[in-house]
């Protein structure tokens, strides 16, 4: 829906691509190149959608303005000459990811997304043992006991509670209960949780793994040493809940987050023997989930996969961006959703990135690209991995998409 | 053949295949290792009534045991592997697991494996602990006294059961003295046990009976008091016969043991009342192993 107003137009019901909740009630006021988000946008979305009227910067080669053609050629030359390329950032819409996969498989190199730490904490359990997970609308309608494990995920997924735990749910009898285990709701979250029973269970710093271990033991009918906090009431509440949900933002869990996830999934697994329960494992942003999904159906592996002479191998440790950069001589940095700052790197850098990206040092090639969901259409995945969200085009910036740039580089390769 | 005045009759012991295994039982002291070993090999004289035949093979010095404590090696034989798999854990469970400070280890490798700790672990009700070190799995079962340690399994061997010698003497006292001397010498042979009380059986049997359901009955041909009523195999001067039954891990072991027994008896000689050495058989058609006394002593 688009309305003309004053010196521009207001687009309504815009789909937001950033955090992965896929809110689709954002209004964007677009005037020429300038963009201002209005109703619906959370603070982060508003900041990320905001654009000034200034035109996007030109592509650059070695710090000098260049045509896209020149930049594409320079990028192709660097790729052709590189011994070991790290494809980093990797934040693009599905089409962008598809093209980057083709480029990486042709040139060789490792692939990782800049926000993948949480994803791999989740995969550590889902890939190894599996779990029973759920999606946003199931939680919204069924969940009578929502247990937030660790730090409040709404710090990253701002409108989470509005989306998944409104005061009433279609199948929820009585008041919905939300328990924060080892974290507490932000002030913003508290506002979203008005009308719900909210309880906070304090867990000592670094004690989340132990707390979840004990909860799992209690839910399984075992006994554990009696230490604080007493988790028996929570275990009982979960066992008597009709549809308990354990939710977490894996990216916020810290280095032993994989163990938290493993134990939370075990709790859910045990609960499902007698009642219903599910995990809501949140992770990532900027289409991390979509990048991983696209990778799975094209390559068969999750990201953190390396291509070498047309062969893909998956190694989550060696292909983590940080590790890959240690022995790479070229970094291809892709970030279409936000001006994410690339990591410092000694070798050559090709940046296919948001126009506002700032760099520690000038990249060898910089090609500004449009944002999916603003400058061009695209597809991103919601954080629950099932639903994917169509992104629209809401202004004419002339900025190319990642897909276009990657395709052009591919075509220019020797 | 006559050796030192003792006639070695032209006879043979007819023996059968049995399957057996060896276990090493240790304890904090040699005394308790032996108590456990004796208890677990008790009531195991004959497969006919006991389901197995078992006995102490030898005392194992600390330097040779798996845990460096005093030990005893025992051998257990049964008619088939199924029988062995049933009696071994049962005996360990009742007599070794229960015996203070004991531990139980595999005494042989190879052959079909016989569960020991693997079968006994359930006693620990979920508290059992398994360790796999040096390619071998071992179990620890928490017990009131501490922990019972037991190997996962032991090997088995196709052995020989029912080797025997009969000592024909002029009196009961002389027969027993000769038998004791024989057992003492035979005990030094590795790989063999003499499963009857003190190694000696005074009631050697023949196959079958006039009574239905009896598989064996008194060997009337060698009963001195029945000399007048039966086709006695005894020379007139013989007044008492003792038998020593041998089970061994191989033909050679039983043969060596047989020889050791005869040698000890012969050493006593005719002067000590030993008239002859004989052996029990069934005509040679039933058991595949024949221990010909004269060949062994040749």
């Amino acid at each position, binding site marked *: 829906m688009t309305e003309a107003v004053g010196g521009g137009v207001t687009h309504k*019901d815009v*789909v937001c691509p950033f955090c992965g909740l*896929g*809110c*689709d*009630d954002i209004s964007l006021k677009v005037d020429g190149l300038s963009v201002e988000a209005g109703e619906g946008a959370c603070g982060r979305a508003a900041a990320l959608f905001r654009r000034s009227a200034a035109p996007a910067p030109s592509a650059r080669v070695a710090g000098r303005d260049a045509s896209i053609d020149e930049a594409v050629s320079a990028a192709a030359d660097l790729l052709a000459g590189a011994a070991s390329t790290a494809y980093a950032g990797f934040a693009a819409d*599905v*089409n962008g990811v*598809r093209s980057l996969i083709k480029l990486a*498989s042709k040139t060789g190199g490792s692939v990782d997304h800049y926000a993948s730490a949480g994803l791999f904490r989740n*995969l550590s359990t*889902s*890939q*190894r*043992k*599996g*779990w*029973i*997970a*759920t*999606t*946003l*609308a*199931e939680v*919204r*309608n*069924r969940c009578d006991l929502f247990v937030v494990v660790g730090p409040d995920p709404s710090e990253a997924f701002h409108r989470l509670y509005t*989306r*998944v735990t*409104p005061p009433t749910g*279609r*199948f929820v009898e009585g008041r919905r209960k939300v328990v924060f285990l080892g974290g507490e709701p932000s002030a913003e979250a508290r506002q979203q949780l008005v009308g719900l029973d909210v309880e906070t269970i304090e867990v000592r710093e670094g004690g989340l793994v132990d707390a979840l271990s004990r909860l799992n033991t209690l839910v399984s009918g075992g006994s554990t040493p009696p230490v604080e906090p007493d988790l028996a009431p929570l275990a009982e509440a979960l066992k008597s809940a*009709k*549809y308990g949900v354990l939710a977490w933002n894996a990216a916020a869990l810290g280095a032993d987050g994989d163990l938290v996830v493993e134990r939370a999934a075990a709790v859910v697994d045990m609960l*499902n023997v007698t*009642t*219903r329960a*599910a995990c809501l494992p949140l992770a990532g942003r900027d289409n991390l989930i979509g990048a991983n*999904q696209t990778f*799975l*159906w*094209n*390559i*068969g*592996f*999750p990201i953190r996969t390396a*291509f070498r002479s*047309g*062969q*893909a*191998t*998956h190694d989550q440790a060696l292909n983590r961006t940080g590790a890959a950069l240690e022995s790479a001589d070229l970094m291809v940095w892709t970030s279409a959703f936000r001006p994410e700052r690339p990591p410092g790197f000694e070798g050559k850098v090709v940046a296919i990135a948001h126009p506002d990206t700032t760099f520690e040092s000038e990249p060898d090639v910089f090609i500004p690209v449009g944002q999916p969901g603003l400058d061009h*259409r695209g*597809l991103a995945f919601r954080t629950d*991995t*099932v*639903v*994917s*969200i*169509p992104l629209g085009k809401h202004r004419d910036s002339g900025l190319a998409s990642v897909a276009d740039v990657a395709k052009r580089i591919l075509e220019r390769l020797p | 053949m006559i050796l030192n005045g003792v006639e070695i009759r032209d006879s043979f012991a007819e023996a059968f295949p049995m399957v057996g295994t060896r276990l090493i039982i240790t304890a904090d002291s040699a005394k308790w290792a032996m108590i456990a070993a004796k208890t677990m090999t008790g009531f195991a004289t004959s497969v006919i009534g006991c389901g197995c035949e078992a006995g102490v093979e030898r005392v194992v010095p600390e330097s040779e045991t798996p845990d460096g404590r005093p030990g005893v090696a025992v051998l257990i034989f049964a008619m088939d592997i199924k029988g062995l798999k049933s009696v071994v854990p049962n005996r360990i469970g009742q007599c070794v697991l229960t015996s203070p400070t004991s531990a139980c280890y595999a005494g042989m490798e190879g052959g079909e494996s016989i569960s020991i700790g693997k079968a006994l672990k359930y006693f620990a009700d979920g508290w059992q602990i398994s360790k796999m070190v040096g390619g071998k799995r071992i179990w620890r079962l928490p017990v009131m006294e501490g922990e019972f340690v037991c190997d996962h399994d032991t090997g088995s061997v196709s052995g020989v059961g029912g080797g025997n010698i009969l000592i024909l003497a002029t009196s009961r006292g002389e027969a027993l003295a000769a038998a004791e001397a024989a057992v003492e010498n035979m005990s030094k042979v590795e790989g063999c046990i003499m499963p009857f009380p003190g190694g000696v059986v005074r009631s050697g049997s023949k196959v079958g009976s006039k009574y239905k359901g009896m598989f064996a009955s008194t060997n009337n041909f060698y009963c001195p008091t029945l000399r007048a009523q039966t086709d006695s195999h005894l020379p007139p001067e013989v007044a008492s016969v003792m038998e020593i039954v041998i089970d061994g891990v191989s033909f050679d072991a039983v043969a060596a043991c047989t020889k050791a027994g005869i040698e000890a008896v012969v050493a006593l000689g005719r002067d000590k009342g030993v008239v002859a050495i004989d052996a029990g058989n069934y005509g040679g058609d039933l058991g595949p192993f024949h221990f010909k006394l004269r060949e062994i002593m040749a």
Partner: protein
Amino acid sequence: MSAVRITGGKVLDPANGEVGVARDVFIVDGRIASSDLADSATETIDAKGGIVMAGAIDIHSHIAGGKSNIARLLMVEEQRAIREPAGQFCACGGGLSTMTAHATGCRYVEMGYTAVFEPAVVAANARHMHVEMGDIPFLDTGGYLVLGNDDFLLDLIASGAGQQAVNDYVAWMLAATKCMAIKIVNPGGINAFKFNSRWMQLDEANPHYEITPRKILTTLIKAVTELGLAHPIHLHGCNLGVPGNEDTTLETIAATEGMPLHMTHVQFHSYGTEGDRKFSSGAVKIAEAVNKNPNISIDVGQIMFGQTVTASADLMSQHRNRGIATPKRWIGMDIEMDAACGIVPFAYKDKSFVNALQWAIGLELFLLVEDPWRIFLTTDHPNGAPFTTYPHLIRLLMDKPFRDEQFAKLPKSARKHSILGELKREYTLEEIAIVTRAAPAKILGFTDRGHLGAGAVGDVVIYRDDPDREAMFSRADYVLKDGQVVVKDGEIVGLTYGKTHSVAPDYDKSMDVKLDRWFDEAMGFKAKTFKLADHEIREGAGTVVHATARSA
């Protein structure tokens, strides 16, 4: 104009009554033409000694979507072990039971398949499904939309909104998801599992909506009939895999009261409880019922021995199966007031009584169902076995001595419970052409596929006439897709992409208002975000929309 002349082969085209007719086949601008249109053939293919058939069509193969990706994630060992062969047409993918998109297209087309349909599109996942199907080369595709556990529908039925409202909803959903048929998976059972029911019989009431699977099934059968969809309801029935489910299957056939119904992977629904293991073959009874009821068609879902992964929307049954996962891991998901999924890796073992009997039951069904136009060759890829086992399956059907040889390898206990050894039937080549081409096209409502008559699409396959039918069907000599040679001498020589097929029956626009509200309130996002646009399909190509009785 491009024109191709295939000469010297024997045409096997059961749809047009041609069985081994020696004639040339002409393809002009991607479609089969009568000879007079193709005088100036630009390319001639010598098919001497070969058998010319239409491209094969798989009506039931799980080739894409969220569950396939979960399977890939879970089967990382398989992905590491099996990679796409290197070469010009390699896309760095891999897998067998979890084959990646590009590899799926390549392996299918090498066997002569040119159209494969994804039988379980969960509406919430439709967008993903379409974008993934877009990365599968060579094949025409389409999806069957999973309905029957979606809360909106159950609420419509339970609240007595009437058949018309259901029809409008079904049409709305087909339009929104761009699917071509309706699938039901465990009618009402997936939904009931969300309310903690563990079993659902045909006449058992849903714990919340109090309607039965029978009611859901018959309502949706009516809906697709009244909407004029070519393909009948594609049903994965109640009690999948449960011993004794033959009764459920027979009751389900009876419940149709003569209305058309396609029952899928029926092998998994043909189990009795006879014998000391309380597991036996129900194939005789089921085949008899299929033979007697011309409104029923089935696909088999043959199992083959080896490692695979089972992927199903039926979380209720997959949760029951979690204990037999091999390797020991599985994923379940409740999905968006819509359906669910459960992915359980599994290895069928020929030494297993149950698995061996499952294998025999599938073959019994193939051999006992008399009408080849109502039975389809599937393994329910990857649930029964990867689709790459089709050539082996074909040989089992065509070659009784070979079948007997395989049967003899199975445990005696299983053979005792199967009549397979007594079944003398051998499929003819014509019957293979029917079950893999002509009949699938017919049951899906394609008039321009599955045959070689003038006007049909130029999806043509030439097989070497090899007495070893497994070898013959493993690699086609030639495959033409829309008239373009894509496989030559068994090797892929060019990359093309197929089309996506859909239906779009008309519906009363008042349904828009109801669904706008449903999405706003229940789903938490907008119906218009949910709906797929044409530009989202195959980078703007859109779908091929097939006519339905009510379409505008």
